[in-house]
């Protein structure tokens, strides 16, 4: 119970930093999307206004819902994401990590999807039910490819599961410069798109079809935390990709600019994929991940084993 631990978890790489950066990057997302559609887009503090507005609204706990699960789900998933951001952030900024933390990250990210499923299924709403069913199917689709993508840096760093060791293995050369690294990076970008349920794989919460799916019955602060979770993932996943494939961040002089550019490039790539692709069906998503993405990542793993 030392002070530093709470600082890491609550302030710098953890909750506060991730939330503020996430809401800001969420504005970048909305603004760039608006420019894609020849619109002006929202003002800078829009996501903060949305968040604080939702905090002050009435919370309706649905009468037919499983009340404990309905209330717990957004907060547990929020706690999971805060933990993940702390683990990734401490290894990126302070070089602090513990053995096997990549596996912990895999588990915690999966718990987030499970919490979406629990929150959606507890409401008893028909659209929420459809939404959480799709969330499970999407999880089945992208999880294998995502885990295989995470295996590539493990193999390339000489079978290290520790995030700090993966970072130090990239001092001589970033993994994205190799053939296996670039394949895994691209597949990882698409997996992130599915994990964040952004438009090509926006199947669980298709707004035009099944009105936000699992989040349909949420209102007030609970919805605010779901929205915050979504924006926090805009920080977590690009940071994870930068850490695993792009050699992390460095803060010496001009390198700060490169660090910011790396992060923004990944975010803008995600926004471009989001804005140029229509929503796919669930069977298309499954066949994409199982027929194309997973075999490609397997090829990347074989290449990584042989040192390419």
């Amino acid at each position, binding site marked *: 119970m030392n002070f530093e631990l709470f600082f890491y978890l609550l302030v710098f790489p953890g909750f506060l930093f991730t939330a503020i950066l996430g809401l800001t990057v969420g504005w970048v997302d909305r603004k760039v999307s608006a420019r894609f559609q020849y619109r002006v887009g929202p*003002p800078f503090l829009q996501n903060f206004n949305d968040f*604080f507005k939702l905090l*002050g*609204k009435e919370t309706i706990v649905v009468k037919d819902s499983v009340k404990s699960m309905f209330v717990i789900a957004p907060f547990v998933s929020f706690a999971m994401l805060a933990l993940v951001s702390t683990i990734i952030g401490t290894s990126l900024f302070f070089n602090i990590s513990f053995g096997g933390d990549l596996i912990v990250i895999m588990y915690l990210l999966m718990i987030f999807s499970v919490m979406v499923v629990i929150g959606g299924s507890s409401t008893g709403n028909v659209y929420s039910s459809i939404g959480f069913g799709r969330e499970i199917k999407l999880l089945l689709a992208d999880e294998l490819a995502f885990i295989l993508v995470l295996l590539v840096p493990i193999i390339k760093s000489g079978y290290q599961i520790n995030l700090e060791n993966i970072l130090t293995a990239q001092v001589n050369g970033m993994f994205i410069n190799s053939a296996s690294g670039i394949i895994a990076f691209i597949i990882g970008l698409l997996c992130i798109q599915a994990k964040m349920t952004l438009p090509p794989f926006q199947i669980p919460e298709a707004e035009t079809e099944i*009105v936000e799916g699992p989040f349909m019955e949420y209102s007030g602060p609970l919805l605010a935390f779901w929205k915050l979770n979504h924006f926090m993932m805009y920080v977590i996943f690009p940071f994870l990709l930068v850490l695993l494939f792009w050699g992390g961040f460095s803060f010496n002089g001009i390198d700060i600019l490169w660090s910011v550019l790396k992060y923004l490039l990944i975010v803008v790539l995600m926004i471009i994929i989001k804005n140029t692709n229509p929503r796919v069906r669930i069977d298309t998503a499954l066949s994409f991940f199982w027929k194309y993405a997973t075999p490609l990542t397997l090829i990347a793993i074989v290449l990584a084993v042989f040192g390419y």
Partner: protein
Amino acid sequence: MSWYNKRLAKSIWVYHMSASPCNNCDIEILDLLTPKYDVERFGIKLVGSVRHADVILLSGVINQKVAPQVKKIYEQAAKPCFVVGVGTCPSSGCCFKDSYNTVGKREEVIPIDMYIPGCPPKPEAMIDGIVKLVGVLNG
């Protein structure tokens, strides 16, 4: 409280409820959300679920068939939630006011806070109405 009202004024999420309209106002509401008018610059967003809504855009004269549903949907909204009547129908009943199937007192079905008259109102008129609502919220 005024701090919260300012946040609310800057992020109005709109739910579009049609209570037996002639569809003319609905088309104009959809025009409002197109790139030309772009209400997202005021933080206005169209949401699909009434649980997320801050403003319900009500179009149409309410007839007896939909009145219970309208009431139910309003009760499901998370408060504070404002109701804006779009078009002449919610305000005066338009040419349907003597019809056999419209409800007599619309105020008893759903408390309408603001009216935007016009048959149909132009998107500019709707933006003006929303801006006036924002002005009330800002005090």
